[in-house]
């Protein structure tokens, strides 16, 4: 194990009493509790961590936060591996294993770097201009190569062993970011008693204060932070969420937070805790204190390992006591880098030079730098950098007045670290997501929040306020106002602690640092987007070719499209584009920031909606019996319905066809029972109940006698079949409507729509009783015997209890509703009991039916039996294009009624055609040939595509009853084709001929069901 040679002897927020060992690219290193992977690597002198996306150039660590675009690594192995994680955010823990990605065979020697040699050709959008010939090469050669080259890290190959969950929470004030502004806002809001949430993406609160050495109230800022957090903890209504990134800001102040709960712990060490949690917050008010991101400078070969953002270097030395180098050159266009230089110097880093792009370096910081004897070069540029896997030195030259060219001869300055600062971009991402409009501030040369749209306020550097005392004051005021707006406190800002102000000198917006050759001409590259290898030359090329909208620029060059979404590159790219168009930056505009703020795992977005909780499985009261008796189930919407009941014995288990034939035989010759509990049931009461039914069904319902049942079809206004079912009159003003299983909820909502909006004058109440009633349908010649035994007091004679009528009786000791209706064509009774007695009823039916060989049957048998009778199934015989007339059910469409839903549409030209697709029966010439459902039908036996089609097979089964196959089909002009032969081309040259028949194959007179 190597010793961390680049670690300061003292200081930092790391716990030196808790060393941590981890591996990177197979080598073991030492860090401390409190280190990030980046800080620990730097402390070990490791700068080369990855290779860039396109040119595979060596890359190091750029930043110290979530804006990192270079240091992307593959974390862990096997089922917990993760690609593209930012080394700057990973908290190290014992045994952590990380490795570089997008490099082969190793990050040290990567053959992909050949691309760098070809980079002159591989410019922005080059792939749109080539790889077109020969055409066949695209899929075979070019694309596979391009795809293999792309893609950064690797996806896991195994399922995720961890789990994720979610939490809904409401708050008065949600504060995003815990820097000086955020913490003050939290204190101000919390003290009013408001419900406050404070979220920060880092592992501890304090934001920028953790990386600087500011004083607040005369003590180190860190102490003030600790005290503030202490105070916040004491408020019962305050929720503190560290390690929590606010990723999305949606409409109506709905925000999404992703909390990392176990990622900082050794893997698998907290099995009961979700790995990550998604907080879904509905906030009355939001305070954005999201800080700002430092901008890199765009100079020649500004991408070498060891070239870092000055603020990041400052954070590494102060917060982690990690030394990113021994001898540094600082390049800046503003004051903040001087503060960094001073801290670096205090930490023992030699400042070889401060290269200031500005003509004059004034202000207290510059003064202090000079006092310390730093070499300060003004109006000077870095024109070249040396070293390959680590920067070894830079060339500097004087610039001309406008800073467009350099003069004189280059001077070389040796260094192992370049700290750059191009100014700061407020982190306006969430503000932009909230649909607030951005404003460009010429003085600060950055975008700041403009007009708010939602109940939200910005405070601190995310608003362009960079001075510490101002941040604290703004936070205090904003927190108090937000609380007041949420109904708490008086809006008066609390007292603000004292801090010293550094009046910053104006920065110099020099978007391209000149070098000895024009941009794009020499070998040097001025990188704008490090991750996607987009250089200033690419931006200018895009502009030249006419890709001049920001969006075109983004899409053509891919700048800002990487995993960092352009946090460090967007403004530089935009500014260079604006310069090339000679138009002001705000006129060229900025791109809209989209959620999420940082990448968010699919796991946490899915939460617990996976595995057995992926979706509710609705089950009937008899479900446990079905399971115990080996039923195979069919998904019908969310319902689990028994599909068939295979019989098993030592020899094995029946397949579906055997089971279904057995079940059909039982129903036709003996007795069977079906669990029909899933059918929709709507209780309809009120003086206008009959009137409502009369309007929504195509047939007449006013005169239905009490105790009688009637089949009805419902259509939409466009005349197409929507649902069907049997409705029974229970009393003068009382009906029970049944619907199909899949449409139960839809039909109820649809009916409510009409009575609440179109016909509010109708006095009628609808109540869903779908789940109140458990339903067993006993069908077959022996059904009467079984029911007789269960309901001894009930007269079952056909005269007393005829077909399509209803009785109430006690069945198996339970008060029940019995409907004599049939979907099988057999004598059948539908027995309904309250669901809590459903299993009791079912068990009793099985007992009573035993001597008659009663057979439970499932949906498949039900389908066969109803098809033999030509009964339709909505959604199988129909799609959204079928009328009742098309189904040969003109008899169910009233000619007398002046109006009912759908009636008007039947007279439209196309709907009135007589040659529409109509429901017919099909009998294959070969009785053993069962046509696959969905088979298309043609008038000619053979013919090559396109072959005109007559229609398709909607249902098809082998009928045990008839000893042959049967099918239902929708066929153009079908009613006029009775007796004709049509054809079913099955593919593979096989064509089956079949005869068009009426769709009723069994007992057309209905003798059996009246029996």
């Amino acid at each position, binding site marked *: 194990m190597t010793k961390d040679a680049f670690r300061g002897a003292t200081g930092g927020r790391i716990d030196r009493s808790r060393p941590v060992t981890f591996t990177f690219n197979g080598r073991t290193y030492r860090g401390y509790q409190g280190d990030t992977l980046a800080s620990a690597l730097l402390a070990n002198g490791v700068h080369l961590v990855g290779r860039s*996306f396109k040119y595979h150039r060596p890359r190091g660590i750029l930043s110290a936060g979530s804006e990192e675009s270079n240091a992307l690594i593959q974390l862990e192995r096997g089922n917990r591996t993760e690609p593209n994680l930012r080394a700057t955010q990973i908290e190290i823990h014992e045994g952590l294993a990380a490795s570089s990605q997008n490099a082969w065979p190793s990050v040290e020697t990567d053959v992909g770097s050949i691309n760098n040699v070809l980079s002159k050709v591989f410019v922005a959008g080059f792939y749109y201009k080539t790889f077109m010939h020969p055409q066949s090469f695209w899929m075979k050669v070019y694309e596979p190569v391009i795809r293999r080259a*792309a893609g*950064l890290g690797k996806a896991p190959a195994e399922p995720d062993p961890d789990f994720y969950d979610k939490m809904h929470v409401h708050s008065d004030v949600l504060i995003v970011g815990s820097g000086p502004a955020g913490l003050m806002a939290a204190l101000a809001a919390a003290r009013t008693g408001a419900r406050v949430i404070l979220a920060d993406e880092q592992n501890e609160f304090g934001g920028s204060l953790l990386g600087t050495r500011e004083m607040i109230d005369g003590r180190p800022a860190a102490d003030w932070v600790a005290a503030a957090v202490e105070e916040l903890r004491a408020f019962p209504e305050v929720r503190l969420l560290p390690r929590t990134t606010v990723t999305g800001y949606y409409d109506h102040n*709905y925000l999404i937070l992703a909390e990392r709960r176990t990622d900082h712990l050794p893997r698998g060490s907290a099995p009961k805790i979700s790995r990550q949690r998604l907080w879904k917050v509905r906030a009355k008010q939001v305070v954005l204190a999201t800080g700002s991101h430092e901008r890199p400078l765009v100079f020649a070969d500004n991408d070498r390992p060891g070239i870092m953002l000055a603020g990041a270097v400052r954070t590494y030395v102060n917060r982690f006591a990690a030394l990113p180098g021994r001898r540094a050159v600082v390049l800046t266009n503003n004051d903040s880098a001087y503060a960094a230089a001073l801290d670096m110097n205090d930490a023992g880093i030699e400042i070889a030079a401060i290269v200031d792009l500005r003509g004059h370096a004034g202000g207290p910081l510059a003064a202090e730098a000079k006092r310390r004897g730093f070499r300060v070069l003004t109006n000077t540029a870095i024109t070249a950098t040396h070293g390959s896997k680590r920067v070894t030195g830079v060339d500097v030259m004087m610039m001309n007045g406008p800073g467009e060219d350099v003069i004189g001869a280059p001077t070389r300055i040796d260094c192992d670290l370049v700290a750059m600062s191009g100014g700061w971009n407020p982190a306006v991402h969430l503000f932009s997501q909230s649909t607030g409009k951005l404003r460009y501030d010429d003085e600060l040369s950055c975008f700041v929040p403009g007009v708010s749209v939602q109940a939200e306020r910005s405070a601190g550097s995310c608003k362009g306020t960079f001075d510490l005392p101002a941040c604290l004051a703004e936070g205090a005021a904003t927190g108090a106002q937000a609380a007041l707006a949420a109904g708490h406190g008086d809006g008066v800002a609390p007292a603000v602690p004292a801090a010293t102000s550094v009046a910053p000198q104006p920065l110099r917006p020099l978007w391209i640092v000149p070098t000895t050759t024009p941009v794009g001409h020499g070998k040097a590259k001025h990188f704008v987007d490090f991750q996607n290898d987009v250089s200033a030359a690419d931006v200018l090329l895009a502009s030249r070719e006419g890709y001049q909208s920001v969006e075109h620029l983004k899409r053509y060059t891919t700048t800002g499209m990487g995993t960092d979404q352009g946090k460090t590159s967007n403004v530089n790219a935009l500014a260079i584009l604006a310069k090339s168009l000679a138009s002001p930056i705000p006129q060229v505009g900025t791109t809209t920031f989209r959620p999420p703020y940082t990448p968010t795992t699919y796991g946490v977005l*899915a939460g617990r909606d996976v595995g057995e909780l992926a979706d509710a499985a609705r089950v009937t009261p008899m479900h446990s019996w079905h399971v115990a008796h080996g039923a195979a189930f069919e998904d019908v919407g969310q319902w689990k319905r028994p599909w068939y009941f295979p019989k098993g014995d030592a020899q094995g288990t029946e397949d579906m066809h055997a089971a279904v034939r057995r079940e059909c035989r039982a129903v036709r010759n003996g007795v069977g029972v079906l669990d029909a509990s899933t059918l929709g049931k709507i209780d309809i009461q009120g003086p206008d109940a009959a009137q409502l039914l009369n309007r929504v069904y195509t047939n007449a319902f006013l005169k239905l006698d009490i105790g009688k049942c009637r089949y009805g079809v419902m259509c939409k206004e466009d005349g197409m079949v929507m649902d069907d079912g049997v409705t029974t009159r229970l009393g003068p003003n009382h009906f029970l409507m049944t619907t199909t299983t899949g449409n139960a909820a839809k039909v109820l909502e649809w009916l409510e729509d009409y009575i609440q909006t179109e016909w509010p004058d109708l006095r009628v109440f609808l109540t869903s009783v779908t789940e109140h009633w458990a339903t067993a349908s006993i069908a077959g010649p022996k059904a009467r015997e079984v029911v007789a035994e269960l309901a001894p007091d009930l007269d079952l004679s056909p005269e007393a209890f005829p077909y399509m009528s209803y009785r109430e009786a006690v069945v198996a000791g339970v008060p029940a509703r019995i409907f004599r209706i049939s979907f099988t064509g057999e004598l059948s009774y539908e027995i309904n009991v309250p669901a809590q007695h459903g299993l009791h009823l079912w068990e009793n039916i099985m007992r009573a039916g035993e001597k008659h060989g009663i057979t439970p049957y499932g949906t498949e048998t039900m389908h066969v039996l109803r098809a033999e009778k030509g009964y339709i199934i909505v959604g199988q015989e129909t799609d959204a294009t079928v009328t009742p007339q098309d189904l040969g059910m003109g008899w169910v469409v009233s000619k007398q009624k002046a109006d009912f839903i759908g009636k008007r549409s039947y007279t439209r030209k196309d709907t009135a055609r007589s040659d529409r697709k109509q429901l017919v029966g099909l009998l294959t010439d070969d009785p053993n040939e069962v046509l696959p*459902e969905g088979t298309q039908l043609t008038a000619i036996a053979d013919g090559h595509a396109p072959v005109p089609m007559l229609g398709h097979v909607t249902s098809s089964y082998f009928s045990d009853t008839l000893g042959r196959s049967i099918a239902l089909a929708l066929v153009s002009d079908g009613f006029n084709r009775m007796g004709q032969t049509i054809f079913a081309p099955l593919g593979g040259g096989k064509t089956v001929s079949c005869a068009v028949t009426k769709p009723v194959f069994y007992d057309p007179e209905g003798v059996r069901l009246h029996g």
Partner: protein
Amino acid sequence: MAKYSIFSLLRNAASHHQNWDRAWRDNRPKPDGYDVVIIGGGGHGLATAYYLAKEHGITNVAVIERSWLGGGNTGRNTTIIRSNYLWDESAALYEKSLQLYEGLSQELNYNIMFSQRGVLNLAHNLGDVREGMRRVNALRLNGVDSEWMTAEQVKEFCPIINISKDVRYPIMGGTLQRRAGTARHDAVAWGFARAASARGVDIIQNCEVTGIRRENGKVVGVDTSMGFVKAGKVGIVAAGHSSVVAGMADLRLPVESHPLQALVSEPVKPVIDCVVMSNTVHVYVSQSDKGELVMGAGIDAYTGYGQRGSFHVIEHQMGALLELFPIFSRLRMLRQWAGIVDVCPDASPIISKTPVDNLFINCGWGTGGFKATPGSGFVFAHTIARGEPHALNAPFGLERFNTGHLIDEHGAAAVAH
């Protein structure tokens, strides 16, 4: 206009890429107007202009775009291209489009990266299976490649997919169209723009149409933020904004605009080499050339022009996604956005003449517009040039809403028994 090729690339590399032409000319409206003005600079509008010039010799054409080319659904979709539609009318139209795509890179001399990696449509219940079989058979007879696959064959074609029977909605099979796939969406817009521009079409960006001028029932031009633009004929190709633009000519449409959301993951090395779609659980996923997993979500219920949808739509989809692809759980969503799709009651487009003389409309593509881009432009150009629909778009006229002859592509809902 210089031809794109590896040679031109090398030549320009030598001169530091200083000498490339503009991809397309950026015009201001001509004072004396145009034979045809196309409102909307998306893929469909640009394709229409291109085919007007190429197929009908009409080159005095302007494409007027409110913002930047391809900034609407062209630049926001999930880039899926397929022609496996149920009804004959649709299959014919989308197949024409797919065939045009097959040679488009070469025709436009712009690599649109059409990747015919195959599109799988999954079946999760008996209703899906029935529907899938119906589709496969219809397509075969229509001469469109399409095949039925068992769950095992699905697994073979897409090895990372989970076909376990223990999941909530197991995969019972699926349909496959091998010629289908994805393309680079921006490149389609840019390629058509470049080719149209090369044939003399004017491309006018950042120009908003504010009115459609008519004189005695005849269109004479459009008012824009750059002034009045005289036009012999006007074609509206405004996707989500169709109702708004058509309203300028007092034309009411049977469309509603809804947010349709999409998202991409961080780029990863190749992990899925086909397109997988499941209408039942609303998962549409493919992997881009860059390595991003591109996903489409379900359409938001409410109408909207905000190019934002509701978060729960994404949440709901993710559960289903991880059921199909458990290994995606630790991957991350990088970016999420929405387009505005104009949806017709029958989920089929309108490519039609209008009651207003010389005014034509092309809209209602809903979630399916990108795949139709060249085909749509081809038939719409014909419709504008001849004043009569092409045989392929004759069934897609506005009249169908009066006659009831809808082309319902919703597909049958799950069986209701």
